[in-house]
């Protein structure tokens, strides 16, 4: 079980990438991108976990209590905001893509090739 969380990470990453590669709908592609990024949350939180550690908040407990790594939690928070921003922007592209091309199939959203 020591490496199980990392198997989960690999699985989420692979599923997300598979979704992007086989996608026939842009919204689906974008959501799969979110899935790919979700794997990084699990990985970040996974590498910083300390067995038996509490959440790193010491409002009502001693500051010497064993706690998990606060750095990866801060990094995940940053990561989540990045994800929200990128997703919002991509969805706005999807709105315009549907207006211009009349479809959301990535195979047909091609103006330039070659």
């Amino acid at each position, binding site marked *: 079980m020591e490496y199980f969380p990392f198997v989960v990470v690999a699985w989420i990453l692979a599923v997300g990438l598979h979704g992007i590669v086989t996608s026939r709908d842009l919204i689906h592609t974008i959501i799969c991108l979110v899935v790919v990024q979700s794997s990084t949350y699990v990985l970040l939180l996974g590498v910083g976990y300390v067995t038996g550690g509490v959440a790193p908040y010491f409002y009502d407990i001693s500051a010497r209590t064993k706690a998990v*790594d606060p750095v990866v939690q801060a990094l995940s928070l940053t990561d989540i*905001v990045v994800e929200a921003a990128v997703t919002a922007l991509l969805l706005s592209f999807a709105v315009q893509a549907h207006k211009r091309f009349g479809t959301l199939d990535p195979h047909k959203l091609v103006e330039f090739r070659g």
Partner: protein
Amino acid sequence: MSPRQRLVLFTVAMAGLAACFAWAVAGLPGFGNYPGPYGPVILHDAVGQTHATGVVSAVNFEYRGFDTVGEEFILFAAAAGLSVVLRRLRDERESRPVDNSNRLPVPDSVRVPALIFTGPTVLIGWWLASHAQTNPSGGFQGGIMLASALILIYLAGEFIAFRRLSPVALLDAVEAVGAGGFAVIGLIALAMGLPYLDNFVPLGTIPGAVSSGGTIPLISFFVGLEVAAAFVAIIGEFGEQTLLVRRS
């Protein structure tokens, strides 16, 4: 590539990448054995150094505050970019929503709870945004809650009210104050001859008190403004596209 060729190439490549990943993970110390030293040093020093009992906030707004500046501006840039991409184009016009009552057909079972919860949501958002230094809260969480309050109004079908409560010029100004204010706090430290983003405000005497943490609650407040305004702006733009903009 045909979808089939692509799937074959992907399967082979993904298997290779998975093997690489497995090889890398084998070098990790194993789940639950985080070796440090970054985290333990922070855990050891943070409460004493910053007087904040919320150590994640201390990392976000103090130790790695400069990351958070960048992150705020990512949101800021995304909201600005959304306004660019979804601006009304030459061949588009605004239409009033269906029937003239400024309301969408939303059942009362949705409308009433949405409107009831608006007030408490604002309160919780405000509380979260102002307690970063003490407990698991902070500008992001609070900002999102504040934005949700306005989004509840939108959900209640009151899109016009939603738009009137959050005109674009106001949102832009709040965003600018939120993201810019954070950057300016850092600049004040610089003007005082300290490194950028140094904590120049007195830390307070009791760790965990609302007034403790020096610049942490201040920054958290500005982050809350930025996050709330950015998300309201984003939802507003999408709402406008769905409800108002029609191609002429």
